[in-house]
């Protein structure tokens, strides 16, 4: 199905591209926001990535999945934008926790949980939140993450390991803060 639309786009049928926009816009936005952390910048990054993918569609070699190829474009544009905005965050690792405080988390409504998880991802560094999204949410293999980010296997493992700990630490500290405010 995807190949048919790729062919259409290469032949200059712009309507064929609507399929890709509808299918990948949420995922693209989710990847972009995990790097740039701002909704409006993430929207611009997503739009730029879609434009680039549209223009470069003829260079897509089909050695990998379209999604992996497209992730790479988004990640490159997002990190370039992050450089431009000078919003790199490289904090030393202080995170040691590796589970969420279930007693506090279970009392939250679904919307609140979603809010806290997204706030947690915003607090994390770009590399870490990106690694979590790619590995746990998009379920990419280490090799695919390597293709997307250009990182080495060992770097990916270290980033995911740190990201898990950071995630739980930030989430627990946000939950503690919430409890403190309620009390």
């Amino acid at each position: 199905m995807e190949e048919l639309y790729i062919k259409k786009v290469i032949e200059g049928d712009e309507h064929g591209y609507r399929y890709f926009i509808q299918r990948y816009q949420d995922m693209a936005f989710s990847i972009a926001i995990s790097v740039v952390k701002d909704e409006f910048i993430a929207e611009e990054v997503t739009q730029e990535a879609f434009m680039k993918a549209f223009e470069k569609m003829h260079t897509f070699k089909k050695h990998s999945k379209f999604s992996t190829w497209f992730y790479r474009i988004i990640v490159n544009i997002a990190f370039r934008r992050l450089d431009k905005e000078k919003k790199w965050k490289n904090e030393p690792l202080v995170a040691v926790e590796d589970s969420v405080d279930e007693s506090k988390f279970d009392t939250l409504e679904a919307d609140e949980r979603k809010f806290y998880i997204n706030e947690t991802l915003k607090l994390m560094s770009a590399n870490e939140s990106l690694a979590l999204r790619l590995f746990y949410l998009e379920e990419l293999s280490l090799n695919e993450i390597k293709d997307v980010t250009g990182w080495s296997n060992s770097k990916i493992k270290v980033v995911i390991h740190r990201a898990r700990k950071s995630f739980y630490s930030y989430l627990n500290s946000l939950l503690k803060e919430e409890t403190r405010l309620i009390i």
Partner: protein
Amino acid sequence: MMGDFNDKRLKELLSDSKVEMPFSDFENNLMRRVKTELNGKRVIHKNLRLSWLFFLLGSVFGLAISIGLPTLKVELAGWELQSIKYPLMTIVLFIIIWQLEGLIKLTVRNRKFRSMS
């Protein structure tokens, strides 16, 4: 370390927090941009082809005039057309080279842009 990564709870938490595109007009805006981009490219390509066509037609016409006109035994304001053969040819050649350079630059730039994008 890979054993640590098998964290079902984290997977659950992240899938519960899936982010969706919050801008409802995103798809239409993007399609408009795609359409504009595509039309722009088509127009540039068409204009470039027309430019080459008119350049060739103009060059042939210019050369024909500069070669053919002086062969006519006609006087123009007391001047024999034979005497303006070389100045006319110089002017025509100058224009041809000038326009050719511009067109080559434009074509190369267009190709580079297309291969970069």
